[in-house]
């Protein structure tokens, strides 16, 4: 039986797609058969970040409308064994995703996969609510910035009232993923710290992903940043995947790294 995890945020552009790509790749790398679904109807982008944009033939809405089988629509990742992508439709019809349709697709996927990662669109409207409705766990992607934190709190409210588990009187397991973190700016008190955001949102911390040039590079190449093992962002995502799997891993990259010349030369930590 698959575990359904939504990657959500409320606010747009905070790193949901980047995180969905990295985390699904990380899960597959650890041997868990994983599918990542793009719920951003009309604004398909996960395919670009995963580097499979030219292999999209059918999409999520085609499967729901029975114009294609799931097998035809799923794209097998070329780099990572056991990883599949279900691309979003580029239709402008906002009601293309129906509860029954999405549920049927998830049920079918659940037979074959260990993890189903749902990349939510921005906002708190129908699209975002559809992406989170069936989730058992939620990764709330937040930037250390006022509007992002506030929107994360609103999305938490929706998870606690409008998800399927909430309707059954149970609760979705919540994780905070703080991204685009800049330790230097936190040190000079210009940016909210991890502790500040944790205190306000009061949910367990899954990881802190530093602001990193490696993310842009990864998206340029269409290879999830977690595959860039030398980058801090890649390593931070890898740690987050470990924690998602229940391992106890210490947080890294929270402090400004001041490497000495020798340290750099010797490649010390």
């Amino acid at each position, binding site marked *: 039986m698959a575990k359904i995890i939504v990657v959500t945020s409320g606010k747009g552009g905070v790193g949901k797609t980047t995180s969905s790509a990295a985390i699904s790749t990380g899960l597959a790398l650890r041997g868990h058969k994983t599918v990542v679904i793009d719920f951003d109807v009309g604004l398909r982008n996960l395919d670009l970040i995963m580097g499979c944009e030219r292999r999209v033939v059918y999409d999520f809405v085609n499967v729901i409308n029975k114009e294609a089988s799931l097998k035809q629509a799923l794209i097998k990742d070329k780099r990572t064994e056991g990883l599949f992508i279900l691309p979003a439709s580029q239709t402008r019809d906002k009601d293309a995703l129906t509860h029954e349709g999405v549920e049927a697709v998830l049920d079918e996927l659940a037979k074959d996969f260990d993890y189903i990662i749902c990349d939510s669109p921005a906002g708190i409207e129908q699209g975002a609510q559809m992406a989170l409705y069936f989730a058992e766990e939620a990764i709330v992607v937040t930037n250390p910035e*006022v509007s992002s934190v*506030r929107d994360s709190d609103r999305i938490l*409210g929706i998870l606690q*009232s409008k998800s399927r588990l909430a309707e059954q009187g149970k609760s979705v397991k919540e994780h905070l993923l703080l991204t685009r973190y800049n330790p230097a700016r936190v040190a000079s*008190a*210009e940016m*909210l*710290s991890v502790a*500040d955001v944790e205190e306000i949102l009061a949910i367990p911390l899954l990881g802190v992903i530093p602001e990193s040039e490696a993310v842009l590079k990864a998206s340029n190449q269409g290879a999830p940043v977690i595959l860039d093992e030398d980058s801090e962002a890649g390593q931070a995502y890898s740690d987050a995947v470990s924690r998602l799997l229940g391992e106890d891993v210490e947080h890294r990259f929270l402090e400004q790294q001041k490497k000495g010349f020798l340290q750099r030369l010797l490649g010390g930590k």
Partner: protein
Amino acid sequence: MGILDYLLKKNKPSSSASVAKERLQIIVAHERSTRGQPDYLPLMQQEILEVIRKYVDIDQDQVSVQLDNEDDCSVLELNITLPDAK
């Protein structure tokens, strides 16, 4: 800590991150308290305000509408602060 340190600290404007944190704590607490309220509440509050304004001159923030759920019933609490009668 010396007196000088104390004075310096006191005069130092609060950091931009701490201003952000304070503002967030306030707005998030407010929004959590209104969470789960029916969607019609803000509009109803507005209409109540307009009715009262036909008779008395009051401001937006002088009317507060709060819905509390108790065991098997909901209580709608309406608080209106009227200005002193002239």
